[in-house]
């Protein structure tokens, strides 16, 4: 019994400790995402990018408040283990601090319930949902921000990206006419990307769909699926799966000698994970992505993030962009930064984000839609010799 009492006391003490910290003028932005499990690298990179961006903003003087004074940005980061329950607990915890806005989460299956507990429509007095602006950097499943008017996302628009990929392929490989799909069927994002995005965009660009193979998130044997793929003998094979099964399928394709003219991958797989798992088999795979170190600014962001032990990819660089977008929104909306005004400031940030139609981004201007989603510039990268190399800039 003593142990339990101690445990409870500790739990409360730990909760209290995080809220008590305020010396000079500062404003808090909270990041959250997965820092455990197979998606751990997302959280590490996202946190590093946020810290790096805050560091850069603070060195340049910080954020200008309504009264003309300057405040430093303080970043904290929470691990939600990619589970709905912890995601909800974390956002409630963040809402209980003086944090002005939350950046996250990593997983679409966390974003769904998280946006669900937010207030659906602002100023709806009958809706007791949480009133906390959330500016998502990673969770990418199509159409999520529609769930709540407090939810914003700065994630690539897969519709636009894959539309462009197939359009570009038409010109680049005019002899390729048929498409075959492979999809990780039980994961929200990859599933939606194939069934809602890739399939639709391929047919819209006059490709003939020859079929699809399905597998599950933690499958390991792909012999049957790849055999179907081989029989279809399509010119283009599009794989909508995360690195682990992408690698498994690519290895099986090599075994069975399936060599399509063009190989397309899921945007989340354009990371180092795929290269760690199967650089040799991924050779030649084309993926649209919203980040690559192609200009001075993008390279600088990557270097800055590396100093905080994270690597730059399309997801972590969205977190980086979010920090700068938030800085300008906070200055435009003249937030007070006072601890007593937290809720009013949160509302101002929400309204500011909702008003935005364009934001600066590392690859160029991001436009923003009515449903609080982004339309970001993108590039096509290809796996070459264990690296992702930019092969085309459609813009």
């Amino acid at each position, binding site marked *: 019994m003593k142990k339990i009492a101690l445990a409870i006391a500790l739990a409360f003490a730990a909760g209290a400790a995080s809220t008590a910290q305020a010396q000079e003028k500062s404003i808090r932005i909270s990041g959250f995402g997965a820092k455990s499990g197979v998606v751990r690298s997302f959280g590490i990179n996202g946190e590093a990018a946020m810290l790096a961006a805050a560091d850069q903003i603070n060195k340049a003087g910080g954020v200008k408040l309504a009264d003309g004074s300057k405040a430093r940005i303080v970043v904290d980061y929470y691990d939600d283990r990619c589970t709905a329950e912890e995601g909800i607990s974390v956002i409630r915890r963040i809402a209980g601090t003086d944090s002005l806005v939350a950046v996250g989460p990593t997983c679409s299956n966390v974003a769904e319930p998280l946006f669900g507990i937010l207030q659906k429509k602002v100023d709806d007095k009958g809706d007791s949902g949480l009133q906390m602006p959330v500016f998502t950097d990673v969770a990418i499943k199509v159409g999520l921000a529609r769930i709540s008017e407090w939810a914003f996302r700065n994630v690539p628009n897969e519709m636009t990206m894959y539309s462009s990929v197939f359009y570009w392929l038409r010109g680049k490989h005019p002899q390729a006419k048929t498409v075959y799909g492979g999809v990780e069927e039980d994961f929200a994002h990859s599933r939606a990307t194939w069934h809602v995005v890739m399939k639709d965009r391929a047919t819209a660009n006059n490709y003939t769909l020859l079929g699809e193979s399905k597998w599950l998130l933690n499958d390991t044997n792909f012999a049957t699926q790849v055999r179907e793929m081989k029989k279809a003998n399509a010119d283009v094979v599009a794989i909508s799966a995360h690195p682990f099964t992408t690698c*498994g399928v690519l290895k099986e394709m090599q075994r069975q000698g399936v060599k399509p003219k063009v190989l397309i991958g899921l945007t989340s797989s354009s990371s180092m994970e795929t290269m760690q798992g199967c650089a040799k088999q991924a050779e030649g795979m084309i993926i649209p992505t919203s980040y690559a170190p192609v200009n001075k600014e993008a390279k600088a962001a990557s270097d800055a993030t590396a100093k905080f032990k994270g690597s730059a990819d399309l997801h972590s660089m969205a977190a980086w962009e979010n920090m700068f977008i938030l800085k300008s929104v906070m200055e435009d909306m003249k937030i007070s930064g006072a601890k007593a005004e937290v809720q009013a400031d949160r509302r101002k940030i929400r309204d500011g984000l909702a008003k935005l139609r364009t934001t600066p981004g590392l690859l160029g201007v991001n436009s923003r839609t009515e449903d609080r989603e982004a339309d970001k510039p993108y590039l096509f990268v290809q796996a070459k010799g264990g690296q992702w190399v930019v092969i085309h800039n459609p813009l």
Partner: protein
Amino acid sequence: MLDLLQSASDGVLYGATYALIGIGFTLVFGVMHKINMAYGAASVGGAYLGLMVLKLGAGLPVPLVFFGSFLAGGLLGWMVYLACFHFIPLSSPLATLMSTVGMLLLIDEVIVHTTDGMPQNYPALFDDVMLRFGEFTLRGDLLLVFLVSVACMAGLLALLYRTRLGLATRAVSQQAIAAQLCGIRLAQVNVTTFVITGLLGGIAGAMIGAAVGTLSPLLTTPLTVKGLIVTVIGGLGSVPGAIVAGLLVGGFENVIQLYRGVTERDLYVMLLLFAFLVFRPGGLFAPAGGRN
């Protein structure tokens, strides 16, 4: 017809990995009448540790990685025994069930922390070999896994029936107290069993790594579930049963996948299991007159 044959044979070969995990579960159950839920995770952990051989000394031959996994598996088996079984009284089966679940989570998380959860390329032997008979093909690397698991079973059976250690193990599994009265040191037999199953788990982990080509913490839960299913279908405590059941489940799920698709595949595996529990609760190779 060829499709069916091909799917079945692919599945049966792949089932060899399930069989290897199943043997470990069944062996521990046979001796201690307890489940070691951490077994699948420890096996994968062994494979990860083996991979460090490659990281430490680049250019070393691939079999050394497998050997490293084998030794690491034994070490992990011993650690699992110490942490989850040694200090917990035999009369609390629920406690060891839970402690091994905790161990499973711990091993998973240690893997995640050392690799940031990223999949790791695992070397394979004969992965470029495909035996072809017209349209029909067999994976060379899976044939190797298959042969290894058969060799493991032969080795285990020899160990159980031809050595003094095996005699002691079987004695403990049949009547622990009587065995103790005959001067067999219970704790020693138990720890030896764990080290042996651990070594086996290391091989299993290495073979699974080789068959999949990639290591990831995602492997542990499905392996644990498949291993348990195989153990039950094969008959608790029966080593040959685990092997046959592993191959059977592998073949069965692949054939179902061919006809019913991947989303329904596991549903039918569960139904198969249910059928076994109802019609043949003792499993394929029910030990004659065994207890429990």
